[in-house]
């Protein structure tokens, strides 16, 4: 089965439970986390999570809405974008 890889990215003020909240949300939709990267950039917490949605029934659009709600509660900017856009822009 073709994998459906999405990057979930988070930018905002560091606080407890960011990874926990997002991991729970994606787990609830049967999405597998393949990789995770985080650091503090210019005083901001920055995280990228590569996740495989191929076993999930949710669409990227609906996932984004859920993540956006978490973002609003925690004052974070959370995006979800299909991997192909990064491949197109950063790989020849």
């Amino acid at each position, binding site marked *: 089965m073709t994998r459906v890889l999405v*990057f979930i990215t988070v930018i905002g003020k560091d606080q407890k439970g960011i990874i926990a909240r997002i991991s729970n949300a994606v787990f609830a939709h049967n999405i597998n986390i393949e990789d995770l*990267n985080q650091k503090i950039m210019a005083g901001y917490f920055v995280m990228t999570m*590569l996740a495989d949605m191929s076993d999930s029934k949710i669409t*990227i*659009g609906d996932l*984004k809405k859920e993540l956006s709600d978490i973002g609003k509660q925690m004052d974070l900017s959370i*995006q979800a974008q299909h991997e192909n*856009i*990064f491949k197109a*822009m950063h790989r020849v």
Partner: protein
Amino acid sequence: MEYSLDEVMETVHMTLYQNFDIRTVTLGINLKDCIHSDLEIFKSNVYDRITEYGNRLVFEAGKLEDKYGIPIINKRISVTPISLIIESSHEDAPLEIAGTLDRAVKDAGIDFIGGYGALVQKGMTKADEILIDSLPDVLSGTERVCAFLNIGSTVSGMNMDAVIRAGKIMKSISQRTENGIGCTKFAVYSNAPEDNPFMAGAFHGVGEPDFSLNVGISGPGVVRSVVEKNKSCDLTGLSEIIKRTAFKITRAGELIGRELAVNMNVPFGIVDISLASTTKVGDSVAGIMEQMGIEKMGAPGSTAALALLIDAVKKGGAMASGNVGGLSGTFIPVSEDSCMNEAVRTGALSIEKLEALTAVCSVGLDMIAIPGDTPAETISAIIADELSIGVVNGKTTGVRLIPVPGKKAGDYVNFGGLMGETYVMDISTFSSRDFILRGGRMPAPITGMKN
């Protein structure tokens, strides 16, 4: 991870903070097979074709916005030049067809439709004349119909009779719409490309297939940001940095355009790599030039800076896509660019300097407010000057001027929304009337004889 955190964040930052977007996805649609001797059936054919594909365009584009997280700002349609499909129709047909186009795109949720125009670079057919005469009615009576005329080309020269008409038409449109806003939907060209996805000049050329999905990318904010971060590098290095950025944003446009074409089951056309300003703060071509070291656009050095910018964008874009087309230059629409407006307000930027700038970029004198009492012959003369640059240099140039009724040089005018706000530019009051009214056809330049 296959991608570094910095790479992923570069893309995310572009959309979140630097206004990176796909400016337009424009579906070119052939309407020639909609022609019918019964005008009602003709209109119904046109309406059905546009609403069917328009609805699908909006739906499929929305899905890709969600998938890639890159906003697609405008979903538009371009059609066969309308003068071609009304050749055998009654004189009332143009207005009726224009009304149908307007209604169809409104019903489909499409924001603009281009192609209400004619190719008259060498001469006008009866249908061309009828269509041109209908422009003031159409542009004051419809909301979303955009009109164009191609008046000159490098191989045909320039149709000065059409230039005379264009000046009168612009005056007439301006007098019939508030602040002359109808003129924002009308542009005249030399060497107009048949696959341009940007309004007001988009049309689906006669050499195109039944459908063609064209994409206009953008990203002045992204380019401005990289130039800002590289204050100390020389111009060779700056060109390289802009080139790399243009490559990345073009690749994103190509990906989305190709996938959209597949999902709609239509041929993919071109990526237009033009940098196009918007009214948003920071999303400004003049802002890029300021970061390059030009105090205000229009200052000496502006033409060189713009030449470097557009050259780098073209090189990066051409490497990123095998299907670069359309206008693929840098737009300098005055009212839509906040830094350019400031340059006009402070006197740094004149219409004469804008004309010089268009020698190195596309697409011409764009979205410029001029005094409402500017004579039609003077507007025609400005058109003739600008289109000559395109005709002689083998490139596209266009003119979209807005004579604003009751306003004089220096006055402020707000067109609202995407069309922006601006200050009325000073226009020379010396007359070229006798030259313009000679009419006829300016012969094609010797550079057009390439065979």
